[in-house]
């Protein structure tokens, strides 16, 4: 997919270079059409293709952990203790491992990816212009909807007597899955260097 986009960009650059060197070519009818394609249609498609590629790329876990502040959060996925919810999900492929961050932290709504991108931009602004919060917090807290996106309807979740007894408070987000003493071991990023790690294939 990226290969096609790069070919499109290169073709567009070649056409633009032709009109940079010989703009007088556009006096001919056929070259007018080529100029329209090379200076309007293809560059517009390149913007759309580039945006799509960047959006898809930012769903990858290695993209999230490429930011220095996120390194320890990435490491915490390898904690060798099943009580840590992100590590347990990542290591047992309960979420796609290459999209582990996105799977649990995206906003599952129509404009969710766009909202996530805007949130990501504010974090970049904090990192490079203002001061990033320490520890890093999720604005508005972690919503149960992100857990329920997969767990709602799952047999072992629905048939669990603890879950079924409080289902309405869980769906209405009155009781948080991760901060009510039930599943409260998340990333523990500050302690990650002192905890036992799992290495794949050990």
């Amino acid at each position, binding site marked *: 997919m*990226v290969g096609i*986009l*790069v070919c499109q*960009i290169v073709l*567009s*650059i070649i056409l*633009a*270079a032709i*009109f*940079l060197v010989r*703009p*007088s070519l*556009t*006096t001919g009818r056929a070259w007018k059409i080529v*100029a329209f394609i090379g*200076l*309007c249609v293809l*560059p*517009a498609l*390149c*913007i759309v293709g*580039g*945006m799509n*590629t*960047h959006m898809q*790329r*930012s769903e990858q876990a*290695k*993209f999230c952990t*490429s*930011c220095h502040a996120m390194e320890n959060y990435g490491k915490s996925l390898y904690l060798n203790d099943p009580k840590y919810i992100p590590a347990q999900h990542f290591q047992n492929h309960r979420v796609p491992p290459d999209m582990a961050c996105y799977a649990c932290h995206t906003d599952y709504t129509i404009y969710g990816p766009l909202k996530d*991108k805007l949130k*990501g*931009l504010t974090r*970049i602004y904090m990192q*490079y212009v203002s001061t990033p919060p320490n520890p890093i917090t999720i604005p508005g807290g972690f919503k149960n909807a992100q857990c329920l996106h997969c767990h709602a309807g799952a047999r072992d979740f629905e048939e669990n007597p603890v879950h079924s007894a409080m289902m309405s408070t869980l769906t209405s987000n009155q009781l948080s899955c991760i901060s009510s003493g039930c599943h409260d071991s998340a990333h523990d990023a500050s302690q990650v260097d002192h905890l036992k790690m799992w290495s794949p294939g050990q």
Partner: protein
Amino acid sequence: MKLSQIGIQRLLRIASVLVILGLGLEIISLLWFHPLSFVLFAFVAASLIGLGILVYLASLVFAVSPLGENRG
């Protein structure tokens, strides 16, 4: 060569430079795996390409105008 044609050709050259610069930066942003690569793409590359397209469309407006005047 008419004065308007020189103006159109200058606009085409400017459009070409902007599009080439924007696309070059887009390639760099695609090769650079870092959160800032999106910022480079969205705020610099896409803006340059968009501006290039606008300048090209402006050159089309200039190209049409003198012809209209001749017909009149």
